[in-house]
């Protein structure tokens, strides 16, 4: 039944092309981050060159890179932590307990994602300016918590629902109180999916750009802003440096690819 038809040749070709298209642009950027300017600025793409680390050295040595990195880590990390701290218990309660406004609450959480970032950023900017907290990490953390909290709840509710009720009921029969059931049973069993949800919210705020752009000018600039600023350095664009900074910016989310892939797989496992 595995006859080679024209259709199947085309299909396989399309798949190879897709896989190539997925990864080739990034690889190309990676390769180019090791090139000197002369090697990059040629019409015919060059694959053989003598690599150099000067681009990375330049990027990593800049003050703004370092501060951008630490800002991003601090802001994303805190927002994710707050989102998890507040969001996981809420998701658990929404998944397991009957509540009067459960559907409305879930819709509310989802509707936060409808908000265009621009609409939220403008008033927030005015507010933070008024509170004299503009361009501070705290203001970003508070703002991003909105995103992490809503996405954590949105992804954690199905994760908790996938935990078999019987396991929790068995714990109740064994004498665990409701908080203990959450802490010792639901959390660990749903653990892998929850980590995926948290990883997702991390990637979400790490990559966030618009809000950070509008709420920071110098002190609290996150890494995406720093990276984009490098693209505005006049006519003589330092492509090698840009490539290097883009690679560096993209590393943390890419490193999480394993976790997110596993999360994706577990979300679609058929209930056996």
């Amino acid at each position, binding site marked *: 039944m595995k006859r080679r038809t024209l259709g199947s040749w085309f*299909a*396989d070709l*399309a*798949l190879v092309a*897709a*896989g190539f298209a*997925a990864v080739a*642009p*990034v690889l*190309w*950027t990676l390769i180019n981050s090791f090139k000197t300017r002369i090697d*990059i600025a040629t019409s015919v*793409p060059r694959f053989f060159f003598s690599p150099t680390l000067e681009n990375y050295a330049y990027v990593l040595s800049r003050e703004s890179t370092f501060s951008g990195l630490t800002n991003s880590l601090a802001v994303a990390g805190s927002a994710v932590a707050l989102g998890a701290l*507040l969001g996981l*218990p*809420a998701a658990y*309660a929404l998944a397991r307990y009957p509540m009067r406004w459960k559907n409305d609450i879930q819709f*509310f*959480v989802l509707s*936060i*994602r*409808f*908000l*265009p*970032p*621009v*609409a*939220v950023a*403008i*008033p*927030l*900017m*005015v*507010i933070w300016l008024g509170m004299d907290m503009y361009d501070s990490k705290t203001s970003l953390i*508070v703002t991003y918590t*909105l995103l992490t*909290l*809503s996405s954590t*709840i949105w992804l954690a509710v199905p994760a908790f629902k996938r935990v078999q009720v019987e396991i*929790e009921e068995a714990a109740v029969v064994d004498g665990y109180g*409701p908080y203990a059931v959450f802490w010792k049973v639901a959390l660990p069993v749903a653990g892998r999916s929850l980590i995926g949800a948290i990883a997702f919210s991390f*990637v979400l705020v790490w*990559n966030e*750009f*618009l809000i950070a*752009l*509008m709420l920071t000018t110098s002190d609290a600039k996150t890494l*995406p802003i720093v*990276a*984009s600023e490098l*693209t505005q350095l006049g006519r003589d664009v330092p492509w090698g440096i*840009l*490539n290097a900074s883009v690679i560096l910016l*993209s590393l943390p989310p*890419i490193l999480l*690819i394993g976790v997110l*892939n596993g999360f994706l*797989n577990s979300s*679609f496992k*058929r209930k056996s």
Partner: protein
Amino acid sequence: MRFDKRLPAVFVLPSMTVLGVLALVPTLFAITIAMQDRELGQLMPPSFVWFDNFIQLFSDRRFLNSIKVSLMWEVVTVGATMAVAVVLGTLMFERTSPRWRAVLCLLCILPVLLPRVSAAFVWKFAFHPLFGAATYPHRALTGESIDLLADPAMALITVALVDVWQWGLFFAVIVLKLLETLPKQPFEAARLDHASTWEVYALIALPMLRGPLISLTFVKMIESLRAFDLIYVMTRGGPGIATETLDMYAFSQGFIESGRISYASSMAVLMMIATTIAFTYLWKWTRR
């Protein structure tokens, strides 16, 4: 299960309060600002002009253009993403062995993980008129350089390509996983019923996934609104106003050009109302 009455309150209230405050305060304030005449760096306290900003919007040619661009953007990116997702996901399901499937999945979720800024830059570099790898074939064949991002007709499509690159491949993986959850026997029955391979997918498998596919379309529609990052890095709304979506225009008005944040806020408020109404409607419709 015996239910503790207090746990829901203890668990849910804190986050709902936080969410409520964080969401409602800016929203209400945005509406307030929209009805004032604030400008960045103004010395006098702002006064209320009520609906003047909104009225002005409707005769603003650039605003109307930005609505047109935003709608085009939504249609093109959502349509292309879903098309790529369904076709690629189906091909992956039909043609790959488990080992290759895992490899392809990993590759295809890579683009969506990149910060939009990175993706924008990666492709801006690839499309560079003089030394981009993607424009090289054109240079090799015609000897001329081509600047897609400076061409008003092509700029939007080019930026849309990046969006579809990120989301289409990712959604293809999701479609693949969805196909994997379907029971196999109706497919076998269909093959015995003289259905060709593509008929099995078009008439049986994909209709069985109608619900999840609609949800995915919905998710993409929301995501497409967040394309500011891509456009900002790749074209800044240009050439001219060819890629100036609504949020790009609001941003320009508020920050780059004139600092008229009240005007910008009025645009943002309209955007908010439109998307909330549209998506609430769609949400209820998909839940029926």
